[in-house]
């Protein structure tokens, strides 16, 4: 088991410590900022202006003019300076390109992971450091803990239902060393109550699975406009390679999808595989949907040194998935094979599989194969 960690020691001189808080206009980042102000830090609010499609410039959900106005208002209430950083070009170069390329390759990419690693915890962190800050804080529900061997560990938030360590598993030690997550110790209910006490607006931004740069949430239309070559109709086959129908383009389908296939059969059929080489969709019964074994690449062991021996872990295969017990087998090339005790459903290539042991987020990577 991974060694338990000591209490994370923050600077003992907050008045000499400058923290940039990434404000979103929502209640979480507002309370995060308020807590830091209360603790006596010199706090600066920042918000990034992210990319949107032409004609949708004001519709990126992460930075609509309305969200900006709310963030400004929060900064005004707290009496902290607030700056808007233009990240449109950088965001497109990193996150949007990754999204388009992923779908073009038949994957279901998770651009939020790339956004966290490249945009929030690199681009924005660099800006914060250039502004003289010592730390970058966000309203994420997660905790950073310093272990006995001086390593920074990423821990789950106290509020397990709000825990966001899944999307933060991509961070490096250097990034974790500069990260503050003031909400990690609190529940959402407490955060709302604190917002009221601080006199902050308590309205939440609508939480949605949609990606911020898809103004209306229509990723299919977005792919059709931005990567039309990825949209080629092809065959829908069953696991015995019998053709059952036609699909409109691989990017329009997700593993585990049942509706919208246009098939009629006695048993419900689900997308079990997307075959990019043959441009076909393979469907199967619910029994055929589960996977016992995943190959996961681009592993980032956020809290521990890369293991050499197999280890037991609870694994999340999506942000909102339940953890499932598995044995993790490290491979020579740095990838891992995850063997689940029971078959797991909804495994999607391109999404992250993230390993936990209790409260500790060990690390994770991108699912590249399953069986």
């Amino acid at each position, binding site marked *: 088991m991974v060694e338990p960690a000591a209490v994370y020691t923050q600077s003992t001189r907050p008045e000499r410590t400058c923290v940039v808080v990434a404000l979103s206009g929502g209640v979480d980042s507002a309370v995060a900022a308020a807590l830091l102000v209360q603790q006596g830090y*010199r*706090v*600066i609010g920042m918000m990034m*202006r992210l990319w949107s499609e032409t004609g949708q410039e004001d519709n990126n959900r992460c930075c609509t003019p309305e969200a*900006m106005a709310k963030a400004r208002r929060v900064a005004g209430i707290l*009496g*902290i*300076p607030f*700056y*808007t*950083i*233009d990240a*449109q070009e950088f965001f497109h170069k990193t996150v949007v390109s990754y999204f388009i390329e992923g779908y073009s390759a038949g994957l279901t990419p998770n651009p939020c992971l790339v956004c966290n690693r490249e945009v929030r915890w690199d*681009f924005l962190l*660099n*800006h914060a450091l*250039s*502004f*003289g800050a010592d730390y970058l804080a966000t309203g994420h529900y997660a905790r950073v803990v310093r272990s006995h061997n001086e390593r920074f560990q990423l821990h789950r938030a106290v509020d397990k239902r709000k825990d966001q360590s899944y999307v933060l598993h991509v961070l490096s030690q250097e990034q974790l060393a500069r990260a503050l997550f003031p909400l990690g110790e609190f529940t959402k209910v407490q955060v709302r109550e604190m917002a009221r006490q601080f006199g902050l607006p308590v309205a939440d931004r609508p939480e949605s699975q949609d990606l911020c740069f898809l103004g209306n949430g229509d990723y299919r239309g977005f792919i059709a406009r931005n990567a039309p070559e990825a949209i080629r109709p092809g065959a829908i086959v069953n696991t015995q390679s019998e053709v059952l129908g036609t699909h409109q383009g691989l990017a329009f389908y997700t593993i585990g999808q049942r509706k919208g296939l246009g098939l009629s059969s006695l048993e419900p059929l689900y997308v079990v595989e997307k075959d990019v080489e043959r441009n076909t969709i393979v469907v199967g019964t619910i029994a055929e949907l589960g996977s016992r074994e995943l190959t996961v690449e681009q592993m980032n062991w956020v809290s521990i040194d890369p293991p050499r021996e197999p280890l037991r872990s609870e694994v999340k295969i999506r942000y909102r998935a339940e953890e499932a017990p598995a044995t993790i087998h490290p491979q020579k090339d740095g990838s891992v094979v995850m063997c689940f005790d029971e078959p797991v459903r909804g495994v999607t290539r391109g999404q992250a599989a993230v390993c936990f042991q209790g409260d500790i987020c060990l690390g994770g990577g991108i699912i590249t194969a399953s069986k």
Partner: protein
Amino acid sequence: MRNNERYIYLDYAATTPVDPRVREAMIPFFSEHFGNPSSVHRYGQKAEAALEDSRERVAAVLGCSRGEVIFTSCGSESDNLALRGVAFARRHRDHTNHILITPVEHHAVSRTAASLATLHGFEVETLEVDEYGKVAASDVAERIRPETALVSVIYANNEIGTVNPLAEIGKLCRERGIPFHTDAVQAAGYLPVDVERLHVDLMSIGAHKFYGPKGVGALYVRRNTPITAVHTGGGQEFGLRAGTHNIPYIVGMAEALELAQQARNEENERLETLRDRLIQAVLNSIPDSRLTGHPTERLPNHASFVFRGIDGNTLLMMLDAAGFACSSGSACKTGNPEPSEVLLAMGIPPEWALGSLRVTLGRSTTLSDIENLLGVLPRIVEECRQLALN
């Protein structure tokens, strides 16, 4: 400012604090002498007396008669009244359809002219400027035509501080009988505003640029200049600007204009010394830096630069975080980087124009403020360059 031990304001071209003497002069007219100057009774008479006293005082500074001073709500409104009012009146009376402006106008002039072109069919022609953003009278002489309705040339530009040769241009407009307007909003606190010497027919000013309150301005309109109201209603301001007079603010502007013009010579000399120290030190200590605007024919409190390969907005935010309130020259808080039209018109390449910085000094600026700024600016510009590279 809770987050900063010291915080230095260096954006006096954006706005100035109200002079305490101005504030004192205004206070009786909020709750004590609150009457409407259009009323017959003594409350109204008291207010009217203050209004007309203010008008006399402003007229005295401008060297004009009281009937030539129109009070408005701000410099932008004065510009709108001048352009729209004269353009419509000239078209109505003389069938003239051509408007001549410069590429270094404030948006209050350039966008008003653009609106006159798109919505009302006026032909708007833009003069040229030299590398300092300065207009040449000879260019005006070449482009002015019998059908020119109005010429408008900014007195001193807000972004680059360059002062234009108004008197020369004014003379040649006068010879041709064509109304000549100037936006003197930036200039009025620092430069001579004698309308006879400047040969202007219309001149816009706004009080908050010279330690008066925000929300009040004036337009000088030479007698017999063709002009029509754009804001109609109850006949105030000789029928040119309807709306109940804002007496405390008008009183405040008159007081502020007098004080600024009285202190002008001495204060300008002090500011010029600080300005020149700043300009010389910035150009010496920061690689790939340039002064924008004219080296000598510029506002005494105004220094403006471009730095190659940086984002001006980021520079401003970093300066603010370090305790210095400056500007890029044109306000933009949305974080969408666009090079300034004024800088592009002067032939400054976009990779320089994006990195603009305007430092404008005022009454409370000291040499140590300038030295403090110079202590951090080279490092901050360098940080900005590094960020832009990534």
